[in-house]
């Protein structure tokens, strides 16, 4: 009897949950202002063509899932058969990566791609040993230093995506100021970062500059966690930032820690690497991510047409490498989608530059130096991976131990 009762209760709860889900199903997401574009396949794939992928983890990691989804999209668009691609998952950043690459060569791959920063040395080692095979590595920086003809780096100008997301954040702050919730001086954002690397610094700086472009009084606190994936630490960092009166949070780390803390505290959140809308419908504004499918399409095209692959390839908005989710209109300020669309047009025609030195200072002074050309800090020009690591005014780093 007890058992039947328990079963009934369980069934009731399942239905209850389903009902809840149904009730909240009214979708407040807009169309994406910057959606993933369809891949253009204007080339013939040779019958004996084969591509190999090396991934650090499997689909359980949001970082790797982003690559695997892109690989699947390319495979489908190009129409590769199952014996024309091999995907190796859970390859650590060590000798195993070299062995995986060499094994892919043995199996007849013409081109091999690896997705994690720490794979770089081992991909280089394989590239030197197998000069007839092309090696591509995401997020690395050694291609232009090593000068190995068949070794290439790739990244995306995700700082442009962050800038656009920053505009959405700035407009939200303006709305709060207009509604009298905060004064213009209290417009402070919080940012949860992983490490103090250029990749993270470039990311939060462009986010801040995006917000500043519409809300001139904005300031930002940054808290680092020292890990790419640590839900507890990220949650703690977000809560600490909220306690320091940050009225809007964004993050550059892969877990649900920070978005979850925001939803609990009802603080608006700008996300990264995938939509957190489903779990955070009351605080999610917009999210940016890198779409790797255009790069995969590009390298497959190069190999099949005999073209040379760029040593450093940095995909931008035009290439479809930077994409945004839809804007959650239940949270975002009015006119956010239009403002983002205008900025996209500006970035495309060159009238908007993210790292325009006219818009920021370091210790009160304008920035000069080798990377600054005509007043623009040229991010991702000399190498595809980000290298903007200036500590610009208006941003306070709460800790720097990582």
């Amino acid at each position, binding site marked *: 009897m007890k058992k039947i009762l328990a079963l009934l209760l369980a069934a009731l709860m399942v239905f209850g949950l389903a009902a809840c889900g149904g009730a909240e199903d009214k979708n407040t997401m807009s169309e994406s202002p910057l959606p993933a574009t369809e891949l253009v396949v204007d080339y013939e794939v040779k019958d004996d063509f084969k591509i190999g992928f090396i991934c650090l983890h*499997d*689909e359980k990691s949001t970082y790797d899932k982003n690559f695997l989804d892109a690989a699947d999209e390319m495979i489908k668009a190009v129409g590769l058969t199952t014996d024309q691609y*091999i*995907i*190796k*998952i*859970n390859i*650590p*950043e*060590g*000798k195993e990566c070299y*062995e995986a690459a*060499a*094994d892919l060569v*043995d*199996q007849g791959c013409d081109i091999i791609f690896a997705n994690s*920063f*720490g794979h*770089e*040395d*081992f991909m280089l*080692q394989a590239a030197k040993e197998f000069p007839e095979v092309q090696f591509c590595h995401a997020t690395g920086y050694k291609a232009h230093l090593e000068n190995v003809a068949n070794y290439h780096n790739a990244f995306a100008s995700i700082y442009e995506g962050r800038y656009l997301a920053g505009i959405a954040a700035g407009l939200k702050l303006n709305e709060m100021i207009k509604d009298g919730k905060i004064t213009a001086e209290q417009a402070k954002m919080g940012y949860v970062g992983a*490490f*103090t*690397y250029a990749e993270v610094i470039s990311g939060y700086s462009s986010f801040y500059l995006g917000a500043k472009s519409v809300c001139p009084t904005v300031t930002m606190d940054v808290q680092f966690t020292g890990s790419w994936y640590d839900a507890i630490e990220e949650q703690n960092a977000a809560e600490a930032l909220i306690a320091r009166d940050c009225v809007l949070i964004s993050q550059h780390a892969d877990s649900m820690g920070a978005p979850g803390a925001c939803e609990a505290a009802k603080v608006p959140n700008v996300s990264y690497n995938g939509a957190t809308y489903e779990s955070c419908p009351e605080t999610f504004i917009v999210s940016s991510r890198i779409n790797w499918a255009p790069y995969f399409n590009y390298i497959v095209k190069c190999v099949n047409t005999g073209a040379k692959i760029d040593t450093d390839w940095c995909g931008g908005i035009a290439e479809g490498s930077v994409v945004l989710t839809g804007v959650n209109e239940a949270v975002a300020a009015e006119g956010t989608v239009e403002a983002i669309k205008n900025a996209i047009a500006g970035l495309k025609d060159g009238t908007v530059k993210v790292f325009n030195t006219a818009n920021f200072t370091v210790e009160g002074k304008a920035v000069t130096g080798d990377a600054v050309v005509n007043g623009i800090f040229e991010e991702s020009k000399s190498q595809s991976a980000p290298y903007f690591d200036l500590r610009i005014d208006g941003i306070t780093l709460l800790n720097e131990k990582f």
Partner: protein
Amino acid sequence: MSKTESKKRTPFVHIVKRDPASLTWYHKLLVRGVAIVAALLVCGVLITLLTGKNPIEVYGSMIDGVFGSSRRVWNMLQGVAMLLCVSLAVTPAFKMKFWNIGAEGQVLISGLACVATMMFLGDKMPLWLLLTVMTVVSILSGMIWALLPAVFKAYWNTNETLFTLMMNYVATQLVAYFLKVFVKDGSGVLSPMDQYGLPVIGGQAYLLNIILVALITVVVYIYLKYSKQGYEISVVGESENTARYIGINVKKVIIRTMLVSGAICGIAGLLLVGGTNHTISTTTVGGRGFTAIMVSWLAKFNPLYMILTSALVIFLEKGAQQVSTDFRISSSISDIVTGIILLFIIGCEFFLQYRVVIRKNRKENA
């Protein structure tokens, strides 16, 4: 028999230890063979149920993953050699019933010492001297990491299982700390220092490791089976009191044996870091320190059998990787398969030592 005992109800099923002489070698072989076949069948059914793949193809892919190319065979041999080396290291301590589960840390710390030597002395001395220093430093660090728990066990009878386990974490965190110090670009990955590696013989990167481990296997076998020290280890393992009674210095044996364990772990660290990886990360040892325990147990602490048991573990591991690549199924499926096969093998060892007796008719019993 007393009355009370005869009245006691015999359980329907009970387990009785077998007389070791009651089974001939072909019986044992048969039981083990049946266990493996049964394990493969169960896994096959499970794979079909969970993924809808043809189990024959899955096993074919496993075999392909291990023997499919000469590179894969070399990789497999290297895998077996490294796992065997760590298993050999824990065996003397285990035979003494000293539960050293700290091989992971002992190997890692010697790898760290080795990498530090390569970094800071690499350009300061000729290669032959560097290699000598690397060898000495690696072996010494492994010994120190093993000596600490041994001394505490010998003099203050601390729990060696906990102590050696904790030493693993200390070693892992030390490696993490020094990687932060050594690596300036923030990637956390130390670029391999290929110029300072152990010599490559016969054009095969792993050949030296394989030969050295084969040598160590023979030496450990002889040491445990034929030397006086090996005999002392067995006696201490059987009963410390007996050992004391016949005049064995138990403290000395514990410490000496752990030094041997640590030294072999040191060699494993040297081969992993100096021989093949030329760099280090917190996962360089990759759980071998723990897998080695199983390898050693399965082989009943016999170094020659350990060749087989470590080969089995590596076969399952490499084969499973290939399955997850070929069929794009989660690597968890491969772990499940590996787990089932090992469970059957360990299970059949149980049935070789014990037999299940089903209660016979009451009358007969009385």
